[in-house]
């Protein structure tokens, strides 16, 4: 398959992730959509890495995965503590910084 097909698929997946962040108000689903966007970027990295015949792109994918794992751990901990305070994870109802 040519590089462009993978890039188009990656763009579509990224767009679905963006739409999800914009239309959903559930914090956990917003996090999942962020994962979708990171994965779309990973797909583009690997496709371009194959296209250039170089492994550097795949290294960046591994770094992105490490950052994503850290981000999910912190983000879910924040969601759990927000839920304990507010009894909700709807991001429209969590609108003040003061705990």
């Amino acid at each position: 398959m040519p590089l462009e097909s993978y890039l188009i698929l990656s763009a579509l997946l990224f767009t679905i992730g963006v739409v999800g962040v914009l239309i959903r108000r559930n914090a956990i689903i917003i996090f999942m959509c962020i994962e979708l966007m990171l994965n779309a970027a990973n797909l583009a990295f690997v496709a371009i890495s194959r296209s250039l015949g170089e492994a550097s792109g795949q290294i960046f994918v591994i770094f992105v995965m490490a950052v994503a794992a850290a981000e999910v751990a912190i983000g879910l901990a924040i969601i759990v503590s927000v839920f304990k305070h507010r009894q909700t994870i709807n991001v429209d109802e969590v609108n003040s910084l003061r705990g």
Partner: protein
Amino acid sequence: MNPEQILFFLFGAVSLVGAIAVISFRHPIYSALSLIVTFFAQAGLFILLGAHFVAAVQVIVYAGAIMVLFLFVIMLLNLGTLSAKGAISGKLKGFAVILGLLLAIEGVYIAVNAINTPEVASAETAATESVNTTTYNIGELLFSKYLLPFEVTSLILLAALIGVIVLVKRESQEENEIQ
């Protein structure tokens, strides 16, 4: 249509359907399970691209560890009943759909432009014959050229670990004060 194309369209369609299911299901559990389907389809795409190591890491880290974390939190908070009222107003939703469609059009436009650019096409044909992206190459690069970023990654993970412990610890102290 050669087998690679068939597999590409199969995995691509599965990942797109999974991604759309993630954002359209009301219940977070179903969204999480759809996300796992998407991750597996993307692992298949990585294998098609010859990135076997990345595909394995995708299944182990994403479909394994990260999604277990998601499912664990969803079940811990028992969100099934709460998320039903999470819908937003129709005007905002229409706005979001328009913005998303614009972004999709931009992405497709850039990709179609890339097809028409001659040097990109020639680079693609020149490179596919000499593929040196095996696990051996990745390991070699990771421990030579990218050694510093690799070590910094461990710092990020350490920071995340400490951050999560601090968040949870402060929470339990406050509970003790209340009691």
